């Protein structure tokens, strides 16, 4: 499995895209769809091919200032690695 580093640029894998409605967005992929809300949605909106992992973590840290040092990075990493194993996110 490819390693996710600070310099990686996570983005939607081939055949994966946003769907649903603005109020209830879903990520569509070949076998199904996942509803994403809250932080998950914020992370995936940043996976548009413009930001590195380090930049995504930094943006989230600015947004959630109370979080413990390092916790956000660990959570983002776990989230994106899970989606990578499902072939929804590439990096």
């Amino acid at each position: 499995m490819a390693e996710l580093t600070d310099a990686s640029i996570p983005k939607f894998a081939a055949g994966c895209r946003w769907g649903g409605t603005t109020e209830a967005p879903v990520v569509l992929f070949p076998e199904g769809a996942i509803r994403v809300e809250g932080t998950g949605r914020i992370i995936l909106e940043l996976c548009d091919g413009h930001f590195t992992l380090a930049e995504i973590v930094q943006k989230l840290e600015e947004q959630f200032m109370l979080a413990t040092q390092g916790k956000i990075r660990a959570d983002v990493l776990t989230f994106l690695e899970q989606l990578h194993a499902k072939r929804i996110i590439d990096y």
Partner: protein
Amino acid sequence: MPNPLALIAEITHRCPLHCVYCSNPLQLTSRKEELETAEWLRIFSEAAALGVLHLHLTGGEPLARPDLAELITGARQSRLYTNLITSGIGLSRERLAQLVEVGLDHIQLSFQDSTEGHANWIAGARAHAHKVELAGWIREHQSDKHRIAFTTNLVVHRQNIDHLEAMIAALEGLRPDRMEIAHAQYYGWALQNRSALLPTRAQLDRAVAVVQAAEERLRGQVRIDMVVPDYHARFPKACMGGWGRQLMLIDPAGRVLPCHAAGVIPGMRFNNVREHGLDWIWQSSEAFQKFRGEEWMPEPCRSCDRRKEDFGGCRCQAFLLTGDASATDPVCELAPLHHLVEDAVREDAVIGTSPEVSGAPFHVLQEKMAGFWDYRTDPK
């Protein structure tokens, strides 16, 4: 009442292949009965309004419809995710580029075996070499602005299951995003040919180990999905996620069914999109309500803890094996008629030999294999 999540559109039953496990019904729909372009586009729009997210364009061979690009364009305008399930026969490099351009999201390309002779023997057609070439063209659309997902699909049965390791290696070389390794499901043509197709327990156990090893090796690179053969399971599958709960299928003539096989159940009236709206058919038609919920269930299902997971198994399989569509799926070890499945699994394995097919016309192949299996034929 849940919304349907996916629509399976069998846009034609015409197909240049003759696969012996085809999931189409034995009674195929002819070309002159097929829905027209505008009718399909209306259906896609109604389906999206009903909450459907995924559209699976299948057949027969969907490429046999010259209006396929129009259908994909219309489906995307209705905000549906579009998946093309195909043998690849009829797809040139130019036509592929056109389908990708109009918004095709995902292509699922079938393979029959690891070597050309064997694959063509199973398909009853010279198809394998073109599929390999097509896979290369599909990969060219992985780096464009329109990026299409690529899945290879292999239907597994007694005649190819021992080549699974070679098959996975060959498919890996085509660099798909996903591999679907689907054991044949015994309906339609596959049921007709079951004595030649059902794998033995020993074959299945080896195949499961092969797939697990491949999953480990390819993690993060190729996702592998395996559909196991329910005849060897202890409990039935939750067929289609339950009758009329998640999916609807529309046949080439516009009949709406809860699955591929339900047309075999006698006494059922499946409504047609030419006469009724999709919304009414899903919500209120008698056919879709028939096996929803638990009212119809016999014992042991009715008092079983598993009934909310497997919904009593598959209604079509219950009918095909027991003659009663309301019976407990005989795959279940708790079913009164479970011995029907046990007997089928115990039958002696017959490993066929593939005759030389290069250049042999289909009718010759058909004659040579008569008594071993029946090839799927094309609708009139």
